[in-house]
Structure formats: C-alpha cells, structure tokens
C-alpha cells in the first residue's frame, strides 16, 4: 500500500508540474468586441465532406472576410445539441447556428428563450400546422433551406444531354419527402431536354441506414446500368459510393450530390449537384454583421448560389460547350422564373 501511495504522489507531482506549463500562443476563446458567432455541428461533426464541413468553410470565410470571431461546438450525444446551443447563447454570441435538421426543435425553443440572440438553422425543418399553413420560425430565427430540386433539375438535363440513352438512372437513400425533392427535380430536368426519356428511380431503403449502405447502392446501380442506363444521379449519402463503384466497373457515369464528389471515381463522375451550405452560412453571418438580419425562411436556390452543378477542369472534357450553353440557358430560365421546378413527386 505504501508503494502505491508513493506512485500516486509522484504522479500527482508530475501533474502539478505540468499545470505550470504555458505554451506560447495559448489562446483564450475569442469572445468580446466585434461579431461573435457560434456554430454547433451535427453529430456527424467535422470531416463529413458534406454539410458540416460546408458550414465550417462558410464560417471560416466569415472569420477571414468579416472579422467574425467564430466558435465551434461538436456535440457528443443527443442532449449535447441543446447544451451546445445554450452554452453559446448564454455567452452572448450575436449569432448561433445549428447545422442539420435535427436541431429544429432545440433551435426553436432557444430562440424563444433568448430573443436578443440571432439563431440560424441549416436545413431547418419548417413544420406545417393543421390547416396546412407553414409555421413561421420565431422572429430571431432564420431557417436556411435549399432548393435542391433546382440543382437536381440541371444535373438531370446534363444527364439526358450527355447520357446517350433514353433511360436515366436515379438512386435515392431513404425513401422520404426530402429525397423525393431531388428525384422530382431530376425527372423534370431530364424531361425538359428529352421528352421521351424515362427515369428509373430506386431507393436504398426506408430507414436512415439507407444513407450508409454502399453495397446496396452498388447493387441498384449495376441493375440500372444493365437496363441500358448510362448515367445515374444519386442522393444517398455514402450509399452513393457504391454507385460510383459500379460506374467504375462498367465504365458508366455517376453524378455526385451535396459536395463535389469527383475524387470518389475520377473520370466517372459526370458532375455533382452541390449544396452551398458555406454560402448560406456566410450569407447569414454577413446579414448579422450589417444588421440586416431578420428571422424567417430563407431559400437558397440557383439565384442565390445556394445550389448548383460542378463544371471545372476535371469534368470539362465530359461536358461539351454546346451542352454547357444549354444548361446555362436552363439555369437562367429557372432564375428568371420561366421554369418552375417541382419539389415533390
């Protein structure tokens, strides 16, 4: 017993010694004067190559260009979502952002409790009351929503123009209204440039697991390619990695979603429908900065650069100038309101 007590004593001494070490550059969290912004990530957290990373990029851009002090919180479990938001709101942040639809209830509650703090929710789920009317978020709460159907429309048109087939493929993740939005836009885009083209649409499942099932994605994609499809658009999270795998095996094409997914299968990714969470986050921070922030529902579509498609050095060779011109014309039509893209099946 004496020996083990000595060990404890020595270890404690080491610990206390370490407490006195102060590395240069050690910083206190940046709060105080200026614009303070807090961001709480979804459980997936940083490094998801999707909307969490998008929010991070947008917030860092705001830190650089607008001089905002940005703090990030990465929750570990369900109750940490509210705790993280509350921590930031109580510290007197000017703006608190929750990333992901799962924050909807927590944000609504806290926005009511802290009326002087601005809140924003990426993919905030706007609810509809009994009479079918949209329930407006609280006055200090901005719901950042994306018109994924508009971006999907454009990649649908690209698929039909480049695909060299009368059949287009679509692989969805969880069979749910959110993903139907992607399918509806895609279908409309295909039809807009090729009236007699058909879309084969399949879903990987009916649970959130369907967003994490590359094996199923590959299976669905292989069967679609075998039916004569040359291009498949996926809106299915990591299930889509299976779609790209199939595209690589059969030398067909896939279309990515949310972020530029070119790197998943170089040469086989025709384009990606990108959701610019970074732009939406930057936009809301800049509104708070110049005091033009108001609550309400913000829709980020093609016009706001909230969604779009990838056209860069990587996929230039796949999309001819004529196709590109056609797509840009369609985009202009949507922005001008001459084409209305459906958002449900």
């Amino acid at each position, binding site marked *: 017993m004496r020996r*083990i*007590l000595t060990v404890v004593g020595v270890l404690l001494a080491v610990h206390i010694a370490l407490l006195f*070490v102060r590395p240069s550059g050690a910083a206190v969290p940046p709060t105080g004067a200026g614009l303070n912004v807090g961001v709480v990530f979804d459980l997936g957290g940083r490094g998801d190559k999707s909307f969490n990373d998008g929010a991070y990029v947008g917030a860092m851009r705001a830190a650089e260009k607008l001089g905002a002090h940005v703090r990030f919180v990465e929750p*570990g*479990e*369900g*109750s940490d979502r509210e705790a993280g938001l509350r921590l930031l709101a109580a510290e007197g942040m000017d703006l608190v952002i929750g990333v992901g*639809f799962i924050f909807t209830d927590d944000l609504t509650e806290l926005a009511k409790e802290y009326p002087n703090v601005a809140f924003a929710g990426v993919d905030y789920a706007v609810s509809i009351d009994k009479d079918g009317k949209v329930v407006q978020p609280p006055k200090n709460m901005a719901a950042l929503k994306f018109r994924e159907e508009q971006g999907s429309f454009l990649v649908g048109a690209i698929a039909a123009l480049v695909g060299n087939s009368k059949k287009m493929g679509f692989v969805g993740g969880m069979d749910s209204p959110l993903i139907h939005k992607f399918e509806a836009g895609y279908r409309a885009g295909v039809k807009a440039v090729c009236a007699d083209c058909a879309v084969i649409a399949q879903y990987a499942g009916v*649970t959130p697991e369907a967003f994490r099932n590359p094996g199923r994605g590959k299976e669905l994609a292989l069967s679609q390619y075998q039916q004569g499809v040359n291009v498949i658009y996926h809106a299915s999270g990591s299930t889509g990695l299976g779609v790209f795998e199939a595209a690589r095996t059969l030398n067909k094409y896939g279309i990515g979603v949310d972020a530029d997914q070119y790197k998943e299968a170089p040469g086989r990714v025709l384009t990606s429908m990108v959701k610019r969470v970074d732009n939406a986050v930057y936009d809301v921070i800049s509104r708070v900065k110049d005091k033009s922030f108001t609550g309400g529902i913000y829709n980020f579509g093609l016009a706001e650069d909230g969604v779009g498609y990838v056209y860069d050095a990587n996929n230039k060779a796949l999309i001819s100038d004529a196709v590109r011109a056609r797509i840009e014309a369609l985009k202009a039509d949507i922005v001008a309101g001459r084409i209305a893209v459906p958002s449900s099946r």
Partner: protein
Amino acid sequence: MNANVKRTIEEAVLPPLVALVVALIVGDLLILAYGQAPSAVWRLLVDGTWGNAYGFGQVLYKATTLTCTGLAVAMSLRAGLFNIGAEGQLAAGGFGAGVAGLALPAGTPAFLAVPICVMAAMLCGGLVGAVPGALRAKFGAHEVIVTIMLNFIVLALLNYFVSAKLHVPETLHTPEVHAGAMPRLSNLIGAFHGSAANWTIVIVALAAVAAWWFLFKTRAGYELRAVGLQPDAAEYAGVKVGITWRNALIVSGALAGLGGINFVLGYKGYYEDGFTGGAGFLGIAVALVGRNHPLGVVLAALFFATLSQGGLAINAMVPKQIVEALQGIVIIAVATSVPEVRRILRNAVSKSGGQN
C-alpha cells in the same frame, strides 16, 4: 488502521485513483500538444460543470443515465457475466417508456402514468436482457457475443419502428408522450434553469439503493455473487447457476432500460432515434471504475458525466476528441488494475482454448 478498511482502500479506491491521475497527466500532455495551457483548460472544464448551477444540472442529468447503465453492467459482472448490450437495452427502455406514454390517454394522473411508463421501460430493457440470459442458461452461448450482436438488432428494429411507423414527419422522433412526462428539477430549484436534470434522478437513486440492498442483503444477491466468484462451487452448494445467470441478465437489462426514461420522460418527452449516444457502452467504464459497487457506480457516473459535459465547455479551446481520449485512458488504466476484469479475461481465454 482496521485491516478490513485497509483492504477496501487498497483494492477499491486506489486503482481508480491511480487511473485518474494517469489520465490527468496524459490529458495535460494532449492539451500541451494542442498548444493550450492545461491549467486554463481544466479550469474551464470545472467552471462549465460544477462551477455553475446549469452545468451542474447537466452533469446530474448525464450521470442519471450513466448510473443506470453502470448498475446494469455491474449487476452482470457481479454474476461473472459481461453485459455489453446496455446500449440496446437503454434504447429499448426509452422506446418502451415513450410508447407507453403515447398509449396512455392524455390527462392520466402522474401517480399512475409514471409507474406504468417506468415499468414499460424496465420491461423492454429486461426483455432484451432475457435473450442472452436464456441463451446462456440453456445453451451456454457466450453472453459477450450475444449482447454485442443484439445491440445492432435492437437498434435497427427501433429505428425501423420509429422511422417507418411512429415518427413526426421530417424528424427522427415520435410525437410527445400524452402522460408520464417527468418534471424538471428547475421547477423546484430555479437556478437549474435550462438544464435537463429532472425527477428521474430520484427514481434512479432509489434503484441504486435497491441494487445495493439486493446484492448485499438478500439471499438471491448472495447467490448471484457466489456464482460470479466461483460458479462450480456455487453449483456444488446448491445454487442453480444457469437460472441465476439468466435472472442476472434480466435484472441487468431492466436497469439499463430504466435509464431510458431520463431522456424520454424527463428531458424531451419523446423517443428519439439515437438518443443513447453511447451511454450504454460508457456504462461498462462506469461499472469498472465504480468497482461494481452501487455507490462506486454513482460516483463513477458523476465523474464520466463531468467529463462529458466538460468536454462541451472546453470545446472552445481544444477538440472534443481530447475528452474522448481521456475517457479511453481512464478505462484502460482501470481495466488493467481491476481483478474482476483480469479474472473474466482469463476465463474467456481459457474457455476458448487459449491456454494451448
């Protein structure tokens, strides 16, 4: 010093203490490696947890769930079994409570609704625990394998029920319960305002006392411990080992299931897919650090809850992975010093023929 007290300190108190100090030192080094001053980070951690009423309330809230899963694992370890299924049992318990609360008509008085929901939670957790229990008793199937695999099955099933049948559109949760919701502690003590701590803590404290009484004051508890220490000797003495194992895992599952009411009835008022967030697995660490004693489990739950809530507070200065690493180090340090774990590992190795 009384020899008995000395032994208790030597065996029960010192190993976790060494583990804690080792973890502190590794924490210092990690924080330094990240370029921050350890003293400042630790202070922020304490300020954000025990330093203010809200933070303390959050610690209490998290410790409530962890106490349940910790008691669950401790109960099985006392019987010489390793229940790794607390995660699934916790989720099942929460689901049971949520469904019971939904099924009851609105306006059911609390003195009826709360016990019904609590029973439902324990029943669902106990059912999940009964599967490995029965398989172990009847066929000798190793409970570690069965409980691990059962986690996936239970979580997938619950996920199916919620997302296909019960969820509110565009969310991952069920509608709010009609009855059985537990008031928050902030209703009584205003300073707790905003924290999720609720009356579940009283129920769980009673459960911890009951677990202690059962283990150390009843015949069944004595038999359970005897089976855990030496099954062959217990059998020779007339204890039905298989049945004791089965019952231990049922009680274990029910305790884990009880933890589900903390989130479902006490905090949100609905079952949300994925609410467990690893609290079931962390229960293993809580039981080990708490040396499988109900009092130790409560203290260990408070410790891990502090780390978890403190991780959020210090997130401004260091990444949350540092706190996760700390948890891991405490677990490794304790696991290597706890005799029960060494014995179970040795048994597992010799059973699988590892001695050759």
